[in-house]
């Protein structure tokens, strides 16, 4: 049932990539526990506009947990204190009246801050561009049912393909490693006959791009899996390691 709460917010503000950032404290009151976390942020921003202050910049778009745009680090956890969801699906019923909530951007060398809570995640696009695809052109492909795919393989590929590219795995990792993100794509495509053809090449190209862009190495802490809003399993990292090893051995 609906009730309302009051909160103290400590929000990271930073004017630009090279500026020095700082925490600022704000009060919000009468927030319905049925509202989403980002709706609470909207209310705060309306408040700030009313005071002729610049609203807090944060990334968001679909607000239904699929575009991967929202990206807040809330009370020390990527996407906040709920399981298997993104920030936009987090609801205020997860917070207590009078609580202080700390809101920060993703922090990783490969994700520089653009403004306030917005970071630059184009590094992920660069990794995909390095090899995260099946090299087919439009047209001239076989009939969709020409190659049967065992259902378990198709299902596991879909589990991996559910990644939304939000970057929570990198933000959660003490090494800022992008292994969960990279492995999800490598694994999805390696599991399907269409993608298997160039699996080795793909693994090598994506891993070397990841290293080049300043992401850290994987030390198997498993933090990424815990914070992933789409429950991507670290088993995919093992598959990536196998594919990568195969590609190195065949050199």
């Amino acid at each position, binding site marked *: 049932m*609906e009730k309302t709460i009051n909160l103290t917010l400590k929000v990271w503000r930073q004017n*630009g990539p090279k500026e020095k950032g700082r925490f600022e404290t704000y009060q919000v009151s009468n927030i*319905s526990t*049925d*509202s*989403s976390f980002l*709706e609470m942020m*909207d*209310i705060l921003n*309306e408040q700030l*506009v009313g005071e*002729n*202050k610049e*609203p807090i910049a944060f990334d*968001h*778009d*679909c*607000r*239904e*947990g*699929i*575009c*991967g*745009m929202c990206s807040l680090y809330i009370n020390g956890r990527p996407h906040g204190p709920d399981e298997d*969801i993104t920030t936009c*699906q987090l*609801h205020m*019923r997860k917070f207590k009246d009078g609580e202080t909530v700390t809101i920060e951007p993703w922090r990783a060398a490969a994700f520089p801050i*653009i*403004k306030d809570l917005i970071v630059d*995640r*184009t590094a992920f*696009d660069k990794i*995909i*561009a*390095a090899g*995260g*695809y*099946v090299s*087919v052109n*439009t*047209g001239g*492909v*076989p009939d*969709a*049912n020409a*190659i*049967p795919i065992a*259902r378990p393989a*198709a299902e596991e*590929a*879909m589990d991996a*393909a*559910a990644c*939304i*590219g939000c970057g929570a795995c990198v933000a959660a990792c003490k090494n800022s490693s992008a292994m969960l993100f990279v492995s999800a794509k490598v694994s*999805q495509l390696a599991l*399907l006959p*269409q*993608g298997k053809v160039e699996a080795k090449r793909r693994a090598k190209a994506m891993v070397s791009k990841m290293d080049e862009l300043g992401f850290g190495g994987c030390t198997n802490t498993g933090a990424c899996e815990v914070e992933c809003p789409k429950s991507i399993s670290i088993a995919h990292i093992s598959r990536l390691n196998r594919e990568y090893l195969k590609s190195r051995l065949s050199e």
Partner: protein
Amino acid sequence: MSVFNSKIPEGPLAQKWTNYKDHQKLVNPSNKRKLDVIIVGTGLAGASAAASLGEMGFNVKNFTIQDSPRRAHSIAAQGGINAAKNYPNDGDSVYRLFYDTIKGGDYRAREANVYRLAEVSNSIIDQCVAQGVPFAREYGGLLDNRSFGGAQVSRTFYARGQTGQQLLLGAYQALMRQVNAGSVKMYTRNELVEIVLVEGKARGIITRDLVTGKLERHFGHAVVLATGGYGNTFFLSTNAMGSNGSAAVKAFHKGAMFANPCMAQIHPTCIPVHGEFQSKLTLMSESLRNDGRIWVPAKKEDAEAIRAGKLKPTQIAEEDRDYYLERRYPAFGNLVPRDVASRAAKERCDAGYGVGTGLAVYLDFKSAIDRLGKDVIEARYGNLFQMYEKIVDDNPYETPMMIYPAIHYTMGGIWVDYELQTNIPGLFAAGEANFSDHGANRLGASALMQGLADGYFVLPYTIQNYLADDIRTPRMTTEEKEFVEAEKAVKDRFEKLLSIQGQRSVDSIHKELGLVMWDFVGMGRNAEGLKKAVKRIAEIKKEFWTNVRIPGNKEGMNVELEKASRLADFIEIGALMARDALDREESCGGHFREEYQTGEGEALRQDDKFAYVSCWEYKGEDAEPALHKEELVYEFVEMLQRNYK
């Protein structure tokens, strides 16, 4: 007579596209390199077009307002994509998909366009599978299908409840492959703010870098708008927060016709509105209607008790439930098209049978769970059930979901001919941004089909027919006066917005517009209400231009400025929608004029007067737009009263 040539090719329906391709002009590989194509938008239509044209050798520049092409709102499509594969052997064919789409659109789309869409649908599935899109499969390893509204066959391919995501990622990956190859240059966090015409042809765009605030000029031999729909005119919709109609308005201002603006789709299965702070509405996929049954209490006193919290839905006996879709439409039942299902929900709620706040009906899975088991339902819809539970804090495996209609998709858009070219030479529109294929109502799982059809299989052909005449046109420098003037106009507009310094936030004005739209230009429209809407929108426009407050300045990132610029355009679209709805004195598909209905409350078309596409031409800031008509000539299908009973 139509004032525009829709360029429908000669010949029998099934031969038209083949005839077109056999005789169109092509561009040879060495010339492709010399031709620049600007594509705005990276959703299904934009990304697939950019990837395909890049592969062919054109020099492509692709723009998106998001931080990555993968964020485009196509990603949120849940249920599936239609194709006429007939894998289930249940009687499907290209003709039947064409016919269902024409009928679903209430006979307000072009026959030839829709036939082509059905014709290329199968190639889309082949293409996506080749890209590694993990569609659902049977144990034998072949592809699975499910049913969607408005069809009696199972022709919908799906990837759990994330079909849009998987198709978009397929197109995105193909696009990134071209970025890597150097044939596509990607511009992220970049917004189109003006279209540049040189000697009457589209030759480029002005963009605003959303990070630095800088205006930039870009030249292209052709410009493709794949910028999605304008559903956010209503403030609350299932669209993403950033989805907007600004590119369409820029095209409109430059002389492109805006077609059928009043045709907007209200989706029947969305999570109901629950508070005034709400920022958007969340869709629950139409696929749920495969297994969910829609009902309200049959007795008013039960509905009242439920609203007062004294009764639970599970306490209502089977005989006291009104499965109103099954009752009214026995042939299609819960799988009637979206416009029909939405109006039926509104009818029950208006009559006092609604649950929740009074503006909600139940979508119940109990009989499906009893029949198939919870595991099967979880495998089919698990992510949707989880999404519902996170938002509403209620477990849909145990209590029925509450749903209500919400604005979801716009069938209207930029007018295009058969080649997807607007009436401005060199300016093309694809996907939801154009008006072409869905008539007055779009069937479920057809948006993904149309976006990818346009991008993979239509534009790569038709744009060549235009560019073939441009091979001798050298790249222009953006120092030409047309570019300089366009940039200056944009700069002036932003400065004007920032200079207002009034009292109201952008969102507060947008919410006001949204309420007017929902009340008067929503599910039920009438002449009196629409006239009121036109007047109210004019007042809102004045309020906006005199009293909006935008903090910050034009340098650097300024989210409020972005929103204000888009809202100015939404206000214009809202006015156009109301005007168009007022003109169209008939009910068809999603456009329901209360004055025109059958005795049973079904939409009543007036084919003798309104079998046309309304094309609106911009006549200047304070002048009324002019209406032109493209007559819809049906040569192959008879226009009938839609019957889903």
